[in-house]
């Protein structure tokens, strides 16, 4: 019989039953992502309210997944969106294609395009997930479908427990 070996294994299992639970009750409890986390994008503004995006299309050009569409237009004296000559008339990111590699953020020369740590992207149609400029601009509200009761620090699993 091999009872001692089975007993050793069972000891391990029983020891683990009384350990701190590693799962969290998402979405009521969330582990926040690390600051570097590459999530949903935002388009930043200058302090005076003008958009930082100058419609240069570098982000669209560098995107390995062809997820970004930018159509630039000229600013006029009556309608001014950005400080320079050009602004992005159409700015769309298709989150069905985006692979969150962050090359667009690296490419942006004016730091207009940034990534948040928001990862909850869902929609009921394909069109829902093509985010337009109105949804991406920094002051557009971030929609959460469920209330969070408790937030855990990002490094909750990396604090020496044994």
């Amino acid at each position, binding site marked *: 019989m091999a009872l001692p070996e089975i007993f050793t294994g069972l000891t391990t299992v029983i020891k683990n039953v009384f350990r701190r639970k590693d799962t969290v009750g998402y979405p009521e409890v969330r582990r926040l992502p690390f600051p570097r986390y590459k999530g949903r994008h935002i388009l930043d503004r200058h302090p005076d309210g003008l958009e930082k995006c100058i419609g240069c299309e570098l982000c669209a050009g560098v995107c*390995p997944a062809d997820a970004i569409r930018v159509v630039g237009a000229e600013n006029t004296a009556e309608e001014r969106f950005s400080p320079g000559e050009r602004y992005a008339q159409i700015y769309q990111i298709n989150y069905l294609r985006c692979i969150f590699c962050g090359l667009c953020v690296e490419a942006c020369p004016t730091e207009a395009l940034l990534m948040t740590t928001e990862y909850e992207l869902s929609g009921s149609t394909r069109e829902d997930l093509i985010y337009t400029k109105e949804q991406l601009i920094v002051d557009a509200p971030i929609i959460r479908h469920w209330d969070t009761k408790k937030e855990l620090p990002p490094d909750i699993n990396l604090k020496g427990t044994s």
Partner: protein
Amino acid sequence: MSKTFDRLVSGIDSDGHGAYVEEHDEESNSMVINMGPVHPSTHGVLRLLLELDGETVLRCEPIIGYLHTGMEKECEDQNWRGAVTIVTRMDYLAQFANEQVYSMAVEELLGIDLPPRAVAIRCMIAELNRLSSHLVWFGTTGLDMGAMSAMFYGFREREMILDFFEMVTGLRMNNGYIIPGGVWVDLPDGWDAALEAILDVMPKRLDEYEALLNENPIFLERTSGVGVLSRDDALALGATGPIARASGVDWDLRRDMPYEGYEGVTFAVPTATSGDVYGRYRVRMAEMRETLELIRHFADNMPEGDFKNMDPKLTPPPRSELNRSMEAVIHHFKLVTQGFTVPEGETYARVESPRGELGCYIVSDGGTSPYRCHVRDPSFVNLQALGPMAQGQLIADLIATIASTDPIMGGVDR
């Protein structure tokens, strides 16, 4: 062997088209069945065409291609920098090994040197990747053998490593962190404390895993003497990594053909001679401990300095320069839209990935994107050893054999 089997392997069924499900051969009294491509224990979309005599496997032929997405071809549409985001998706459990070998090949063609910090970061993160990959193997193997708790424990510890990846690279999988010329971004503040937590916990957890399975009679019954691959077969089939090492082939690229970062580093290469599933289990478990030592070595000797090659023709200028220097803006636009060029030539780079020799063969025509980017994936080569391993054993043991080969179908099909 039966004619039916040959016909099915060649891809023609009795009606003359496509795959077929089951056939009974009257002449030889054997039965041909398909296992997979959607089978819970074939670890992805692996299809095995089996010829059975009762429950004994007479022949086993892996049929691949169900996950083929043309990633090697897609690399040719990207520039040299953008192709990193493609190669990282090939063997998705060893993403850093993929990025590393691709970057090494590109750097060799470019003829550039890396700052020592970049090399150390790369090696450290690739070794962590080996650990996380083996933990997935441990979990899924345990699950296949009926030890469900093994899966919980393996994935729990992997979570720590994925959290560390998230902390450093911003993503948990498919990171795109190692790029030609160095790494994407320097290590964040507090990385050493986080790593210390992993290195602190892991040895104790490995003890627990071994207490759970090493001497477990049920596990031994299912693994020892099962799926034996002889040393000669392993060499003839070109098997590498833990599979070859468990068959007595003492070969590890990190030690025998040291590449960047591994020169002068001493570490043990665990081997076994039994060549069965249990031997592969023991080799991988011992490798995890060795990997912990290597991670500690790279972390303790982390040099200061640049984290990537700062050649302005290769790396875009720092963002602060863009507001001041017109030249910087020009460089930035050129590198972002077009990318850097790589001199004409071809090269082959290799690293020891968690599954064996991972090679990358690159051809450049002097342009801004790869002319050809071929990846020699260890899963693909090791999968060919499945036939000899499975021959003559029971179909139930095939599950254990597949689990011990640890194939990643993303890497097999690319």
